[in-house]
């Protein structure tokens, strides 16, 4: 099936540093998402993005978080500055359309460890 790629697979950084997580969505998809999964807990929605804008975000999407997709390149999640509680696996997803009838395809995740 369609593939979503995420780079890197694992990132270790010191608290307070900036980190950028990269996502290469399915080529013709128009909607992009980030989800966060803390070890042993369920995956939780962070944000979705369409046509260069954030459409919806959850309370987990703190002020230190930002997303962008400049010129059709990677869809990125930037955290600046990072905090210990940001340690989690971050999953990127993309879908062709913006309603629930459009399937969301997920990448393999980036494991972020904040020390």
């Amino acid at each position, binding site marked *: *099936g369609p593939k*979503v790629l*995420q780079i890197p697979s694992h990132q270790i950084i010191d608290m307070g540093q900036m980190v950028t997580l990269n996502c290469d969505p399915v080529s013709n998809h128009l*909607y992009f*998402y980030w*989800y966060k999964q803390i070890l042993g*807990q*369920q*995956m*939780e*929605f962070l944000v*979705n993005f369409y046509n260069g804008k954030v459409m*919806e975000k*959850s309370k987990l999407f703190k002020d230190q978080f930002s997303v962008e997709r400049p010129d059709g390149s990677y869809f990125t999640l930037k955290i600046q500055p990072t905090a210990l509680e940001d340690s989690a696996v971050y*999953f990127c*997803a993309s*879908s062709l359309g*913006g*309603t*629930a*009838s*459009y*399937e*969301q*395809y*997920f*990448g*393999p*995740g980036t494991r972020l460890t904040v020390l």
Partner: protein
Amino acid sequence: QQQVRQSPQSLTVWEGETAILNCSYENSAFDYFPWYQQFPGEGPALLISILSVSDKKEDGRFTIFFNKREKKLSLHIADSQPGDSATYFCAASRPNYNVLYFGSGTKLTVEP
């Protein structure tokens, strides 16, 4: 508040048996329920989904049974194979609102 709950947390069945994974939800506005399969080190992959207007959806060995009144659904995996060993996530979404709410998953082990 956890909007989607799954049980059991882990399940072991023998090859050839039917595995039954359960899911319940809080929000009666949810109308789309996908199930995702995840292998270690990989992202979740969409397995099968159902809309709330239906009470059953089949795809090969995988069947969703949906009970709107009780706000419950279940995934049945018939003739389970060792290759089905994975974590299964139930998710839910509201109409015209493309945010998925996930359960905490059921880890299925199929013993040969």
